[in-house]
């Protein structure tokens, strides 16, 4: 029987075998080496005479001799005068703090060396992120060392002192307050109890002050729906780990939505499959653009942005029908593969263990979702109404009103938090900037001169989060503390302290925080280390669960016990959820707009644009589009073909009288007639502050956001788009490092797995390639390091890539170099598409790529995606090792493929011979070159470098080392402690940060280790085994919860 395995491809140019792609894939290096220039007649024509030659040679030799005579530089050692007690040079210290990269507030452990933070990791036992950290969190450490941050407070764009600024601001505030003028404090979502206390103190002093919270990408409708139905002014706490079925309408909860690390941890936990398992979380995604979450869904159907409401009505009514409850609309919309019906069925089957969410900021949509969840009995189980999420608290109505008041001059004073940037993120943009600058008083707390700070009269720069004290309460009952990991680099002051100073309270914020925490938590003042409830032990741990935390909710299986009743009993208006839904159902538009539409979305790395000056994030290829360094418009291949457009063509997009232009990418999985635009680009910071962000060209998607029904609206209809008649060069890596369509990713389904199909090809099971080998077998007397990557867990979020860069001093090369395929990332996430047949079945036969080529009716909307992280495979029979003329690569007795930089002469033979394309050649001295102005070439930026890893020089090959510095450190700690090395003690950087627990590293000689179990798992396979390379990296095939492939 011929096996019907999917054919995978990375990009449309591969699928269609375009000439440029075919040409490029044959070479390891994109550009020819300039040998021709060196060896051509012009340079070889001997015009130099013998005497000149001898003179020059003589001069060179004597010059080289003289140069070699220079004195060895004298190095100094400067020890402390008074050494802090708990610090030793060369030994890392770790501090627990909280991530402020986005509003999810994951708990972090920051590694500091010689007083400077160099790496962040998630806190292992935090109930939010459970040891994981995302790409943004990993990258926050580089933002700390951004030399474009403000070095001192500013008044009217000139540096001033804090005393002067305090005096002037205080006088103005007093005058405005006494005359009854309106004072507004505009911040992002503040959830820290002590921060809120400081704000309240400010409001008590200036009674006309109002605190408004604002999220650039709003969750206001979601909050308001829960306020209307349950009287709870917050987002419920989602518990994906307990879910059996998840339906998301547009919400990218694994990539950007609300709390991605938390959700990814829980989601992959619920999708873990062991042998013989018959159930796993089934995930349905209905969306317009291919999101990271959608790409991981079992069932994904594309739908117009304007149809989200109709999908929800249809889903609501299908669930209602199954449960015998009243319908709210008259839509019977169905999408491919009857997926809405199937979703309803799965939700009902998993009653009380389902989650329905939508990203839509339309209150009616959210009310429908509340009603669906309520009908299914999910509240109190998978949706926690006691430990609610405080990660987004922005209120659209207040913000919209504020803009109106600002424009009409009704706001006398405005203080703007560092985490919001209204001039950039509100459509009013420039007009708003004018209004802010004309207000009686405008102060920005921004760390740098961003769009809003440029409009303000005063800038009172706050500390970077890694320099601050503070607290955050991302979930009600869970407080995570922020403590500084470095003394403030610049003359800055945290915004809470500034606020307090302006009320006349000249307190140090650390003391304020400590006093408040001790009082509210009832801590003992006994600071001895044995006291687990002391302030210091809290800081050491990094977080605390307060009394309102439901103790066993998160640790034990939900069994419908009293936990549920305690949560639900506090809610009075539960019966009314259906009534609200019925009302909402009548208001929801149920017809797709026929026109071209726009969906505005956040990208996994850049998100809302707050971190867009971070070179690590800019260089990170987007998991879906694989574009780095630029803003693009994602369009469907079908629409592009109709318009006769191809990749990198620029189009002008007009909606509501506004026009922006953007280069396009033909994106499989994108809904036809829908353009996806990303937030976070088109920044216009002050020159020095935006040296990275400003360089990235692109549109500002926020300028298109409009207000509908009192909420910010992120999907637009009535769009026209036409070619701008030009092209724009993009750096996209999707087809770099191509592996010629070999059988690299493997998948199966849960049902097939029960029948014994673990995604293995038959020949691998026979082990054919392993029988004969030219090489002697390696012996691994001590350790044998190995890695297993579970493709079923990997969501493709790219956190590992940034973590690897931070740990291993991987340079940022910039857009031009990425275009030349010279990105230096030691690991990459390959993204493979496969597509269903022409009927649009979501799960069905696959076609050969060459058959698909001629098939113009292929529906690229229904692609399936598999991600595969790829790093050096540490082969036992490594092809790279044999070809090195200087033996700069060799094999260790612990199974590592060792690259020796100081021996490498840069022939690049190894890269040419590596079948996995994981070797990176260092073309420039990136760390000492003005051309690569990405923080890492200046004094301050260099502080982020890991002192235990060499910064590689120009002209050498480099690659993944399995984090050998961590292996060596782990072994040494074991030796020092006179104990054995425990399994899981040595974790690679990619493994440690992975929000999906997809990567496991360990000693394969240890039969009790996790890695040993995984390597002997039936889903285990290695890639390109036919070459007999015997990789040390193993993969576990992906499992989908779909019906079997026919």
């Amino acid at each position, binding site marked *: 029987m011929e096996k019907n395995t999917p054919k995978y491809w990375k990009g449309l140019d591969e699928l269609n075998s375009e000439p440029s792609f075919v040409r490029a894939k044959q070479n390891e290096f994109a550009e020819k080496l300039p040998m021709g220039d060196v060896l051509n007649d012009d340079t070889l024509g001997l015009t130099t005479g013998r005497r000149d030659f001898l003179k020059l040679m003589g001069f060179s030799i004597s010059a080289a001799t003289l140069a070699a005579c220079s004195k*060895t530089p004298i190095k100094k050692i400067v*020890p402390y*005068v*008074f050494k802090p007690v708990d610090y030793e040079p060369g030994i890392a210290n770790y501090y627990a703090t909280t991530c402020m990269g986005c509003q999810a507030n994951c708990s972090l452990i920051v590694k500091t060396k010689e007083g400077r933070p160099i790496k962040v990791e998630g806190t292992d036992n935090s109930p939010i992120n459970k040891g994981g950290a995302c790409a943004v969190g990993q990258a926050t450490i580089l933002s700390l060392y951004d030399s474009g941050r403000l070095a001192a407070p500013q008044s009217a764009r000139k540096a001033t002192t804090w005393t002067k600024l305090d005096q002037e601001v205080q006088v103005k505030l007093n005058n405005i307050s006494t005359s009854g003028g309106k004072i507004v404090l505009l911040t992002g979502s503040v959830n820290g109890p002590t921060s809120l206390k400081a704000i309240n103190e400010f409001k008590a002093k200036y009674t006309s002050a109002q605190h408004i919270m604002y999220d650039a990408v709003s969750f206001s409708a979601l909050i308001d729906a829960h306020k209307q139905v349950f009287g709870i002014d917050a987002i419920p706490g989602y518990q994906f780990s307990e879910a059996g079925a998840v339906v998301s309408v547009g919400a990218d909860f694994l990539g950007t939505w609300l709390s991605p690390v938390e959700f990814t941890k829980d989601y992959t936990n619920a999708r873990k499959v062991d042998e013989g398992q018959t159930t796993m979380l089934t995930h349905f995604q209905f969306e317009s653009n291919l999101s990271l979450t959608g790409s991981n869904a079992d069932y994904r159907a594309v739908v117009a942005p304007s149809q989200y409401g109709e999908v929800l009505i249809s889903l609501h009514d299908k669930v209602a029908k199954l449960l015998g409850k009243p319908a709210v609309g008259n839509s019977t919309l169905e999408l491919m593969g009857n997926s809405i019906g199937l979703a309803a069925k799965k939700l009902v089957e998993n009653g009380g263990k389902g989650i329905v969410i939508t990203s839509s900021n339309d209150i009616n949509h959210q009310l429908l979702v509340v009603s669906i969840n309520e009908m299914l009995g999910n509240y109190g189980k998978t949706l926690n109404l006691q430990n609610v999420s405080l990660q987004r608290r922005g209120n659209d109505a207040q913000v919209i009103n504020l803009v109106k008041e600002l424009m009409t001059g009704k706001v006398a004073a405005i203080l703007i938090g560092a985490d919001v940037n209204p001039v950039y993120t509100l459509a009013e943009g420039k007009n708003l900037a004018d209004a802010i600058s004309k207000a009686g008083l405008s102060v920005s707390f921004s760390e740098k001169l961003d769009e809003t700070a440029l409009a303000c009269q005063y800038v009172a720069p706050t500390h970077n989060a890694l320099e601050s004290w503070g607290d955050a309460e991302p979930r009600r009952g869970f407080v995570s503390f922020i403590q500084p990991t470095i003394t403030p680099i610049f003359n800055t002051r945290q915004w809470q302290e500034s606020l307090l100073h302006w009320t006349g309270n000249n307190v140090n914020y650390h003391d304020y925080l400590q006093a408040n925490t001790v009082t509210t938590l009832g801590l003992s003042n006994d600071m001895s280390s044995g006291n687990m409830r002391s302030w210091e032990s809290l800081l050491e741990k990094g977080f605390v669960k307060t009394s309102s935390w439901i103790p066993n909710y998160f640790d034990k299986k939900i069994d419908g016990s009293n936990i549920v009743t305690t949560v639900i009993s506090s809610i009075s208006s539960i019966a009314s959820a259906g009534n609200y839904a019925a009302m909402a159902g009548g208001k929801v538009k149920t017809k797709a707009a026929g026109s071209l539409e726009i969906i505005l979305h956040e990208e996994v790395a850049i998100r809302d644009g707050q971190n867009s000056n971070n070179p690590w994030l800019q260089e990170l290829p987007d998991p879906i589009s694989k574009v780095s360094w630029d803003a693009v418009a994602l369009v469907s291949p079908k629409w592009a073909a109709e318009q006769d457009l191809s990749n990198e063509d620029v189009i002008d997009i007009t909606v509501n009288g506004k026009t922006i232009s953007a280069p396009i990418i033909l994106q499989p999985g994108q809904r036809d007639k829908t353009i996806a635009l990303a937030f976070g680009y088109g920044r216009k910071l002050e020159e020095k502050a935006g040296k990275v962000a400003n360089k990235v060209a692109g549109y500002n998607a926020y300028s298109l956001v409009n207000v509908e029904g009192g909420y910010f609206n992120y999907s637009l209809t009535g769009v026209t788009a036409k070619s701008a008649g030009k092209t724009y060069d993009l750096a996209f890596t999707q087809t770099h490092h191509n592996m010629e369509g070999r059988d690299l990713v493997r998948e199966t389904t849960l049902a097939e797995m029960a029948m014994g199909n673990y995604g293995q090809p038959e020949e691998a099971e026979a082990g054919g390639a392993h029988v004969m080998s030219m090489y002697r077998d390696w012996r691994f007397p001590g350790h044998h390091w190995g890695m297993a990557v579970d493709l079923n867990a990997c969501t493709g979020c790219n956190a590992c890539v940034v973590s690897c860069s931070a740990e291993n001093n991987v340079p940022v090369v910039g857009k031009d170099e990425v275009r030349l395929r010279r990105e230096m990332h030691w690991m990459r996430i390959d993204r493979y598409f496969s597509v269903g047949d022409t009927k649009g079945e979501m799960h069905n036969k696959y076609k050969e790529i060459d058959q698909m080529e001629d098939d113009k009716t292929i529906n690229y909307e229904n692609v399936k995606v598999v991600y595969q992280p790829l790093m050096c495979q540490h082969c036992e029979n490594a092809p790279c090792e044999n070809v090195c003329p200087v033996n700069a690569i060799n094999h260790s007795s612990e199974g590592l493929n060792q690259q020796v930089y100081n021996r490498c002469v840069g022939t690049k033979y190894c890269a040419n011979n590596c079948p996995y394309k994981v070797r990176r050649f260092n073309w420039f001295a990136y760390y000492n070159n003005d051309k690569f102005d990405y923080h890492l070439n200046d004094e301050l930026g260099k502080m982020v470098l890991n002192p235990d*890893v*060499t910064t590689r020089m120009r002209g050498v090959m480099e690659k993944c080392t399995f984090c050998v510095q961590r292996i060596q450190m782990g072994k040494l700690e074991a*030796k020092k402690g006179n104990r054995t090395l425990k399994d899981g003690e040595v974790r690679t950087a990619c493994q440690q940060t992975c929000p999906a627990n997809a990567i496991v590293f360990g000693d394969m000689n240890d039969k009790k280790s996790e890695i040993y179990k995984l390597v002997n798992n039936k889903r285990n396979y290695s890639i390109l085994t036919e070459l007999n390379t015997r990789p040390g990296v193993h993969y576990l095939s992906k499992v989908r919860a779909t019906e079997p492939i026919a």
Partner: protein
Amino acid sequence: MNSNVAGGLLGLPNEIALGLLITLLLLLGVIAVILYRARKQVDLLRNVNQDIVHKETRLSKLLFWYNTRLNKTMFFLFLGLVIFLFSVVGWYGRAQDLGTQIGYAPEQPIKFNHKLHAGQYNIQCQYCHIGVEKGKQAGIPSLNVCMNCHNAIQQGPQYGKTEIAKIYKAMDYDAEKREYGNNPNPVKWVRIHNLPDHVYFNHAQHVKAGKLQCANCHGAVNQMERVQQTATLEMGWCINCHREKQIDSKGNKYYAATYDFVEKHKAYTVAQMGGLECAKCHY
């Protein structure tokens, strides 16, 4: 010299062996000349009354051979070659040591006398270099460590008060009033043992896990008034030790659990546990 470095001729260090060789050769040459001249005198005395004008002596043959132009050139070329070879052999050893800074003993900002502290007073190295068993760096002590003793001892046997006063100045300490000021200024010591940046070296591995003595690499510091570098710190020097040194890891549970030969054999080297592999030090 460290005994771990493989010896040259007769086990002597290269320089001395070469010197001996050259002296011997020179001596031989001088003896040959003396003998030759003596022989000539004897011949002259013996043949004083004979007709020697037309007789071809060995000397005249030699002179004739020497006087032909080609042979003259050959002779000088040969001589040149011999001298060249000698200098190559001689300088090779020196060139290898270029940049190794062996014997480097810079003057330090404070004339701290190791012979006095570590030798005469027998203070343990770890008392000041506290990092040596904990991590990568042994560490130069911070000045508050000095003050453990020099709080009381304000005058030394060698330099009197001058050097100790430098500690007080750096700490902004008033020895009379016994008060610290607010203007400390750290001492900038000159680093003696320098490894290239691409080498990772960890003291704890060698001292704590490997149970090496400080003197194995740093020489008899307790005999040095001013510390100097005694080992080459070259890779060959490192590798030699990893190859030859029999290590003692008895009782360390890590080694016992990881390598099965640890319990079986009495002696083994670092090399047997992969100590010669590149990524043990270069990453």
